[in-house]
């Protein structure tokens, strides 16, 4: 019997593959801008949103979206206040988000299976409404990136030169951080808060090892993410493992294999 005969698996795969494409695409810019911890910070903030939603009776997925978007704006604001210490913004939002989440969880003592699914991801948890939100928001994010990718390239490569080329650097950067927040909140449903940033960082890291152009970097990053998510979700179903952890372990395995393989080829030549 195929695993796709289960409705929840179909939903998990659709949601998982869409978030794979999103995370891998945005991840290329995030890694190259040396902001690998942005995903982690936003994920911790979205956990506060999840806890807040559970506490106040909202659907946690939506409150996670709001919390991540708010955190994205806060990161941009703090980054401007400490321009030379970008990581200050990430640390503040990451620890603040986590602190808020823990306090809210302790207030209602809501540490249940539902919260667990947001922490580590769950195959069963993806509802039809979740799939619709992920697909709709996913198309919006990809269209935004398609529209802005040249400007994002210029900013990522040389921010000062981009500013002098007349690119509205602050506006484009803020918008990109908001898109990242949206992606994180979407990905949390499938891979979980604790592992979402790995999906944004590992596929681009694999790609950076082998790509021979910026265009190819995207292609390889997306392929690695798609393969990791598909095989991870499949394995998590067959062996009854946490999907987020399985996906990330496969992606990390690919990274190690590529690094070892590349080293061996260099030695050979």
């Amino acid at each position, binding site marked *: 019997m195929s695993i796709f005969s289960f409705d929840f698996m179909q939903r998990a795969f659709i949601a998982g593959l869409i978030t794979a494409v999103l995370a891998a695409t945005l991840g290329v810019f995030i890694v190259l801008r040396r902001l690998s911890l942005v995903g982690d910070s936003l994920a911790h903030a979205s956990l506060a949103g999840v806890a807040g939603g559970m506490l106040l009776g909202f659907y946690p997925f939506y409150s996670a979206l709001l919390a991540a978007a708010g955190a994205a704006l806060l990161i941009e604001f703090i980054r401007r206040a400490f321009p030379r210490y970008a990581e200050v913004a990430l640390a503040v939002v990451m620890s603040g988000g986590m602190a808020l989440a823990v306090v809210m969880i302790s207030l209602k003592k809501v540490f249940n299976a539902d919260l667990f699914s947001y922490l580590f991801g769950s195959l069963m948890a993806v509802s039809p409404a979740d799939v619709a939100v992920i697909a709709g928001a996913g198309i919006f994010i990809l269209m935004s990136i398609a529209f802005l990718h040249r400007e994002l390239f210029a900013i990522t490569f040389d921010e000062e030169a981009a500013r*002098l080329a007349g690119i509205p650097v602050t506006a484009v950067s803020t918008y990109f951080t908001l898109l990242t927040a949206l992606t994180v909140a979407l990905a949390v449903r499938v891979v979980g808060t604790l592992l979402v940033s790995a999906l944004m960082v590992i596929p681009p890291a694999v790609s950076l090892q082998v790509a021979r152009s910026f265009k190819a970097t995207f292609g390889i990053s997306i392929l690695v993410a798609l393969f990791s998510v598909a095989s991870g979700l499949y394995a998590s179903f067959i062996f009854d493992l946490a999907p987020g952890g399985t996906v990330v372990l496969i992606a990390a395995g690919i990274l190690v294999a590529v690094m070892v393989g590349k080293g061996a080829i260099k030695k050979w030549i």
Partner: protein
Amino acid sequence: MACYRNEGEVVRLVNVTFAYNEAPVLEDVNLAVKAGDFLALIGRNGAAKSTLLKIMVGLLRPKSGEVRLFGWDIRSFRDWDLIGYISQNAGDINASFPATVAEVVASGYYGGWRGLFARRARKEIVEEALELAGIKDLAGRLIGELSGGQRQKVFLARALVKKPAALFLDEPTTGIDAVAREDFYRLLAHLNRERGMAVVIVTHDIGAAFTRAKKIGCVRDRHVYIHENINEVDQDHIAEVLGYRLGENYVYF
């Protein structure tokens, strides 16, 4: 072709004062760069040469005074196609950045909200810039694989892709060997002479500045002293006044 508010004038600074944390580094600076000028800004490390260049292109805002770029107040200047800029940090790019030379050069073509709709840099525009910088054969190479001298030419090509009327360069030859440096200055002189491009360059290469530039600006003690006619200036005297010693940051060609 873009319309100049004040034809023939590239940059004008009027009584410009700039301070970092209240400590002034430039005071009452007045200077003008005209179309076809080749101005070299020289001075010791920390003399605020780079600061001056950044003020000219609007990357830094002066505490007081007026900055005009192509006749426009810098705050309302929008025609970024008119200027090409190479920053001091350009050479420090991440060596593993996965971009080809052609992709980097094309990135100079996008800019402004107009750029969002102008879209793709046409292949021939990129090729023309590569050819002008003499690096057409490098188009498919990764930027991280190039030597320092080759990279600087890539950044020059990126600055040239919009066919600017003026180039602003901040110590573009730092860390590259003498032959590549000479080659780079020759290219700048060619662009200035044959294409009428105004060039403003911050440099420590006093020898090259005196060989290639038409005007010299000495940045010293928070002031800028412009020598309009380079032939009337004694190179060794300038070097001595600025506190350079032969062999230290001081290159003759």
